[in-house]
């Protein structure tokens, strides 16, 4: 009742009226969002009203430390009237979603289906006491198991002694004959035991063992006398003793459960050379930013590294990444060298890795084929992507995307996308994010593991 309901309703209304996600990604203001909060403008969730055109209305300002001169530029202060009770605030609202929701929505909107894999073991917890070992504290001795093993051993060595003694009463059979017959019957008896039994019988009857004849032959014995299995006998006579032996001891200990974190490192690479003008830079931002959110939302832990390059490459913070423009030429391989270096800190068997590069496809000489492609092949990653931002189509000499596509286009861990205007952005994002997904999480993962198992390349 009351506020809770009003808040819920606001959320619903906000969701209904927020900008469509594709629209937001392609044309909306991405600037209001932070790495952990995606803010999507809501189309007039605030109620409309008759109001002045803000430009036409002008305003009043107060000069700081002196009289202002007509003609001097000023920044109107948007927050002037805000923030007092009983008043409605600013003009538009944002629908806020966390990256998880963003990723879900984007999955839905673009039909993506990326299943992140757990990699790094972050935790080993003790599960149930279901594993066993041959040594351990007495208290953890698995008594059941110990007894069972003892019993098994007992059963294995137990045999129908009377039956074996009958073997000695076969006409003409000596100790060796009886032993051979018994072993033939699968009776776990030793020759020494038979010899012992023969000696006893001789003592009792006072004649050589060969003379104790009750049966014509072994065959007759087999026919006339049934051997009693050990189990029957134990049931009948009870268990006199079980032979406990040290080797039968089993100690319980807890099972180790490995929790693997679905963690990801994303390296965003951008060409900052002179040819990358404002519109190109904006296109890069439009492609990269939602992908960052998406991967943040998909993975348990995400780290982002930002590399810009002209003829050389250097690492920057996110805040600088999209804005930097340098004057120099272009050598894309410089960036991949730095990427390889950065990724050393993120072993591939512990991290999912994405390398997203963007630029206008211009590159120095044969850098792409001679250096970049081999580097891309050598850097293990779930996905390598190159985004060509070329408003108005690619220039003739801008061949990087084509060359990468020709060389690696068939690989399921390489994607090339081309963006010439904001409307292409969502397609590019789909192209990139579905590449790995189509490759099939399991196979890509398997392949990766084989490769790493086969020995580190570096």
């Amino acid at each position: 009742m009351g506020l809770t309901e009003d808040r819920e309703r606001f959320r619903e209304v906000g969701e209904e009226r927020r900008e469509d996600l594709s629209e937001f990604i392609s044309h909306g203001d991405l600037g209001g969002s932070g790495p952990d909060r995606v803010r999507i403008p809501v189309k007039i969730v605030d109620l409309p009203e008759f109001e002045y055109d803000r430009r036409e209305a002008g305003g009043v300002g107060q000069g700081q430390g002196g009289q202002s001169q007509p003609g001097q530029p000023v920044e109107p202060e948007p927050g002037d009237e805000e923030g007092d009770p009983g008043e409605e605030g600013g003009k538009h609202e944002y629908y806020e979603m966390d990256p998880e929701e963003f990723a879900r929505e984007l999955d839905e909107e673009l039909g993506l289906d990326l299943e992140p894999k757990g990699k790094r073991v972050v935790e080993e917890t003790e599960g149930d006491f279901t594993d066993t070992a041959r040594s351990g504290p007495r208290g953890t001795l698995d008594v059941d198991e110990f007894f069972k093993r003892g019993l098994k051993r007992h059963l294995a060595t137990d045999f129908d002694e009377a039956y074996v003694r009958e073997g000695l009463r076969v006409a003409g059979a000596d100790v060796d004959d009886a032993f051979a017959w018994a072993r033939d019957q699968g009776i776990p008896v030793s020759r020494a035991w038979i010899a012992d039994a023969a000696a006893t019988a001789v003592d009792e009857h006072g004649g050589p063992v060969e003379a104790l004849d009750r049966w014509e032959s072994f065959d007759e014995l087999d026919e006339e006398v049934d051997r009693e299995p050990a189990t029957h006998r134990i049931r009948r006579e009870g268990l006199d003793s079980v032979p406990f032996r040290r080797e039968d001891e089993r100690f319980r200990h807890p099972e180790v459960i490995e929790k693997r974190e679905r963690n990801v490192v994303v390296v965003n690479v951008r060409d900052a050379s002179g040819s990358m003008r404002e519109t190109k830079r904006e296109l890069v931002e439009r492609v990269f930013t939602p992908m960052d959110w998406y991967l943040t939302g998909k993975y348990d832990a995400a780290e982002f590294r930002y590399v810009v390059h002209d003829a050389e490459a250097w690492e920057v913070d996110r805040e600088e990444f999209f804005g930097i423009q340098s004057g120099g030429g272009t050598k894309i391989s410089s960036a991949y060298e730095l990427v390889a270096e950065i990724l050393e800190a993120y072993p591939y068997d512990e991290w999912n890795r994405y390398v997203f590069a963007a630029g206008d496809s211009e590159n120095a000489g044969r850098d792409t084929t001679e250096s970049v492609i081999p580097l891309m092949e050598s850097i293990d990653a779930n996905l390598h992507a190159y985004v060509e931002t070329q408003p108005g189509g690619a220039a003739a000499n801008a061949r990087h995307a084509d060359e990468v596509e020709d060389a690696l286009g068939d690989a399921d861990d390489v994607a090339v996308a081309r963006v010439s205007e904001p409307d292409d952005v969502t397609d590019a994002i789909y192209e990139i994010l579905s590449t790995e997904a189509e490759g099939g999480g399991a196979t890509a993962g398997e392949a990766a593991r084989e490769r790493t198992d086969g020995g580190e390349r570096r």
Partner: protein
Amino acid sequence: MRDERVEAKREAASLDEPATEARDLAERLGLEPYPVRYWVVDHDEMNELIAYGGFQRRYPHWRWGMNYERQRKKDRHGLGKAFEIVNNDDPSHAFLQESNAPADQKAVITHVEAHADFFANNRWFGLYADRGEGGPNAAARLERNADRIAAIADRSGVDRDVVERLIDAVSALEDTIDQHSPVDAARSVEGPGIAEDVSDADGDALAAIEDRIADLDLTEEVRRDVFDDEWLEARGEGVEPEEPRPDVLAFLRDHGKRYDPDSGKAVDREPWETTVIDALREEAYYFAGQKQTKVLNEGWATYWESVMMGGEGFAGPDEFLTYADHMSRVLGSPGLNPYKLGFELWTHVELRAARRDVIDRLLRVEGVTPENFHSEIDLDEVANALEPHPAIAGAGPATLDELVDLAADGDPRVDAEAVDRALSARDGERPATDGDGETAPDAGPDVERYPWKLLTREGLAERHYVLSRPEHRSALRNVSRETLAERARYMFDVDRYATVEEALDDVNRAAGWDRMLEVRESHNDVTFIDAFLTDEFVREGNYFTYEYSRATEQHRVASVDADDVRKKLLLRFTNFGKPTVVVLDGNFRNRGELLLGHRYNGVALDEAAAKETLKRVFELWGRPVNLATVRVEYSEEALRRAKRRGTEPEGEEVGVRFQYDGGEVTEHDLDPEIRERIAADEIDYDTKPDDWLA
């Protein structure tokens, strides 16, 4: 409110004394506040109260949820912590933030007392509040609306979304009321006691109204007087107001219908719909008082807060720094800050009134003329003579004996009774009147902490006399000869005083405060700024206007002229800073269409917002709706020429009519006759100089 929480309770108890003492001080200073109930709330409750506009319960609507989220975000990021929120009601309810430091709480209480005085005495609040016995009764009214609308939304036959949509539509128009008239000026269909929102089976609204009037059991005389045929007629169809009607909401409430998408026709509203519209309109009137007196009211509260806290040491010496910091944050926030603008204007009002009082007296001194004023009068001497009496200025335990002497002479500046009690308490005497010894000895007023208890308003006025404050000591010297001449013109009895001393003896130290009390009764922000924003004020504050320059695609300073600044400020405060939109015709084109007119004053509408709003109007009218306005168009040629010359392009004002009939908003040429009717030529708010940027 969860006032049973231990923490809150403890805090509230510790505020009893400051609240009582602040009330005493406020009244001694001449304020007449409504009673105030103080509540202590935690920050989440505070956010909720702010979301609800100062009340604990409002009708169900997503907008409150939005306000709350916003406020919570602000609160979390430390932008705009709210110290208090107070609603204008009798009694007023003030909610104080639990986490405020003791000095903040005291400051807030003094601030609130001044607001409560403003609510009780300002006539613009009276438009809502003065409704007979019950007074404003705002909390109860808003709560009743909350219950009613919630009940409507819960009805089985009513779709909750439809109710919300209706609230959306009415809220979009909440500023298109006649805020200069009492809330009940436009009689509602409901009339007295007909608040029921039950559906009428017979469906004949007019007959239903007549029945209800009959039920009221009025005398025929009253009946004819109040509910005459014309009034009844006005409930019917196709109303053509002869005069434009500023209360658009009332007009829609009384004559609007509902569009039925199934039949494609306008149908009569369900009674509950009218109930909702009427309830929201009434609330709009409640908030209108606040909205049109923002600068005035906040400035007023800030002024008295500073007198009480700073001037009268309501903050203890140990709390003063916290208070000073609090105040500087309130006044120092950037931009055009209503607290600061209001505070400065009020001080200006006080200063001018006090100065005028002194000038008037000095100009009556034998031999003094506007021409020789500055040379004839020793203004340093005047300044010294105007210094408060030392015993008054330093009133307290140390000056008690002196005050006793003054009281003995019947000095009106001294509260003789309080002085007497203080003296008795100090000397350990029992009150003389109690012979039987049963009464405990009178501790007397705590003059150590509250020295003002020894003084009357007159005494306090002398203690705080504006012309003896250091920052205003040069005010008399700076007065111009023109001002003096102007004052002298209105003076008849010019030679009354023989000497300057004699004249100064007559000076009314409360002249500033008296004037302030008058102003707080009758003014709103528009009249306040219009009357008191002087050239001097604009110059000293370095105020300027800015306009958007099409040539440079930037906002640029346009003018530093006081008239321009005043005009621009007025634009911002006139009609809540919104364009004025009125009903021109309820039977436009003889088809029952509604024609609204934007009174064009040189500033065009935000067309996108206007079109959206028009769609909401349609929901309340049920038939096609029109909006007449004027916009500025720039021809290709004008743009080219301006570019060539590096000047601002010259636009052409073109009349336009937007129409909405449920499909798309369409644009039409505006009939010149209507164009004529919407022109508001009294003031042109454009402050661009002719040769701007040339």
